[in-house]
């Protein structure tokens, strides 16, 4: 009886599921075939002879474009309006890096996502110290290099020094030269073109540096408040001081207690400007500005973060003018 019932049950089930079974098998077969076919597809040939460069930041991508001109095809990993510390690379970014001849990055520990990105792309030419990578921190005189044992009690500390070095246009010179040297090494046939582009860029940058120095002369020595400790290089260039931040410790969001401390600090020192990056929430700096009557200077960390920062020189120009205007307005 049991077997009869079982057989009957099995028969009905088998009948009902024939269509489903066929569907599943077909779907599985198709999926397996497609997967197999695409895994085995040959690598597509390069359509162009341009050097393909993947840069982690839009600022680096712009410098590569300035120096490489028409000889390079540049892509950026981190969208400029996002905090470069906390990017979640996407499959399309993996593909950019995989396809690139050259991978340009900030080095140090700015891009915590760089390691997983390189692992996912799996192109050994882009690993540290390999021919297809360019670490732009090499050659930079780093600031805030730790001189004491580090701990996360200190917050999101940088192990090798502050990595936001590209905000100083003097470092722009060093980076542009390093890019020119690398492009020439990888594409020696166009060395003269890269040298000419570099000369042209440095000529324009040097002219602006003199102008910026002149512009900053009226505000030198003044103190401003930051949100995150990402401006020491720009402070050095402008002669400004930034000793306190809305973040009580790097990476730790502002607290009411700390805002109270900053309010007192600003009153005591007569600080009139708060430097606010575009990608951090404005609520804390708005509260502090309201309490102290200070102005917020909205600065960019990277090229194309705002429309005004259309290229590297425009990006530095925007930051410096924003700060000087806020300081002069704030003191006026």
């Amino acid at each position, binding site marked *: 009886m*049991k077997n009869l019932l*079982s057989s009957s*049950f099995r028969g009905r089930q088998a009948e009902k*599921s024939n269509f489903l079974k066929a569907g*599943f098998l077909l*779907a*599985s077969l198709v*999926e*397996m075939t*497609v*997967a*197999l076919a*695409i*895994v085995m*597809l*040959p*690598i*597509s040939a390069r359509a162009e002879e341009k050097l393909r460069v993947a840069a982690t930041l839009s600022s680096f991508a712009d410098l590569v474009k300035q120096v490489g001109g028409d000889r390079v095809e540049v892509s950026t990993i981190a*969208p400029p*309006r996002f*905090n470069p510390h*906390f990017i979640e690379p*996407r*499959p*399309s970014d*993996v*593909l950019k890096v995989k396809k690139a001849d050259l991978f340009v990055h900030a080095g*140090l*520990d700015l891009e915590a996502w760089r390691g*997983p990105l390189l*692992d*996912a792309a*799996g*192109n*050994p030419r882009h690993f*540290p110290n390999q021919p297809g990578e360019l670490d732009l*921190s090499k*050659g*930079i*005189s*780093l600031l805030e*290099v730790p001189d004491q044992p580090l701990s*996360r009690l200190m917050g999101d500390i940088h*192990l*090798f*020094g502050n990595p936001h070095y590209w905000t100083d246009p003097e470092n722009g*010179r*060093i980076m542009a*030269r390093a890019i*020119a*040297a690398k*492009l*020439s090494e990888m594409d020696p046939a166009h*060395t003269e073109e890269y*040298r000419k582009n*570099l000369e042209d860029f440095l000529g324009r940058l040097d002219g602006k540096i003199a102008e910026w120095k002149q512009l900053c002369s009226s505000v030198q020595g003044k103190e401003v408040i930051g949100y995150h400790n990402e401006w020491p290089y720009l402070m050095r260039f402008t002669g400004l001081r930034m000793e306190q931040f809305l973040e009580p410790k790097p990476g*730790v969001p502002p607290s009411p207690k700390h805002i109270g401390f900053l309010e007192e600090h600003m009153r005591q020192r007569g600080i009139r400007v708060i430097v606010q990056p*575009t990608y*951090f*929430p404005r609520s804390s700096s708005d509260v502090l500005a309201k309490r102290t009557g200070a102005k917020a200077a909205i600065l960019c960390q990277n090229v194309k973060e705002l429309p005004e920062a259309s290229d590297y020189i425009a990006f530095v120009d925007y930051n410096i003018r924003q700060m000087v205007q806020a300081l002069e307005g704030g003191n006026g």
Partner: protein
Amino acid sequence: MRSSIWIMVLICALCVAAPASVRAETSNDEVVAELREMRKALKQQNELIQKQQAKIEELERKVATSPMAQPPAPTGTRPGALPGQIGSLLPEIGAVGDIVATSSEDDNDTDGNDRVAVRHVELVLGSNVDPYSRFDASLTYSDFEAAGVEEAYLTRWGLPGDLTARFGRFFPKVGKQASIHRDSVPTVDEPLVIRRYFGSEGYFRTGADLTRIFEGPAGWVFQPSLGVLEGGTGEGGTVFGSTRRRPTAYSHLKAYKDLSDSSSFELGATHLVGSKDADPQFEVNVFGVDATYLNNLTPTSKLLLQSEVFAQHRRENFTVNDTTGEETRFDRHPWGAYALAEYRFAPQWAVGARADHVKLVDTAGPRQYDQGLSAFLTFYQSEWARWRLQFRHEERGPRETDDSVMLQGTFAIGTHKHKIQ
């Protein structure tokens, strides 16, 4: 005589003195002339220096603008440049603690009900082995089971055809949430379909797989994967039997598209074929589809919508216990799904909900399905510490229900990197 001598000396002295004063006047003119000469020479020197300075600057500029110019020597300690380069050879080491407090209606004294439990402590190690490969391992410790190896695998890059291979124990690319570490799951618990079919901690098996990523038409990115794994499932999983001898084959195709610089859509298809046990007639096919929409609305807020469906085709109806004669029936086409939404509305806060439904494999009793609804609130204390509160309502068949409240703390120390999904 003596006085005349003195007079003579005096006269001589006067004679000497007188021309001296005359000479002094002469000498002043000479000094002035000499000074003029010197000034002229100085001016010439200055001009020369200026010319030389200009020449130096020109040469410096030529050198500096030469593409072959090397940047100056770096300053500061660089990654991997610790004294003696010891740091370069040490693997990345990190640990993740996952502690969960649960208050539940469930009478069972298992799974951390009505207690605070160390659900998971994960020790993570990883490093490049050589220029071609990398080794990663995750060792897990828990209140609920013995210490184990969750992952231990070698990744080999640069194979012919741009393929990447993995060999060892790893999370195969089966759907989305079955293939990620617990600390990356957006809820305290895994979706019911994952827990019931693949196991309570997701699906990780020992085997080998091949993956390739390439660009398709219209900006789509495709990533197919193929692999062969040991049989069986994770803890509590029912999709395959417990025997590991008959391998499971899996394939996955991910299709991904950027909709903008901040939003994306991903569609995945998974197929697994394995066995319930060693008997080859008990074959199980699993077909899955997953879809994920992610939008980073602002630099500090994002929206995640995700859903997965898994359906099985099982070559069996029932089993009969040889001793007792007891019969256990099986649904030949069980399926399960979940839908999840998570909204990170502030840098430190996220809220979300999940709906689950799964038809059970073992349908001998009245309990044919499980389903549930969950709501959760996440507080990101910092980059390395997170708190999550979840309310879960589960219906286990038509009669049994369980309402639970869970508080989860997840903490990471050392190096902790998430693989790109």
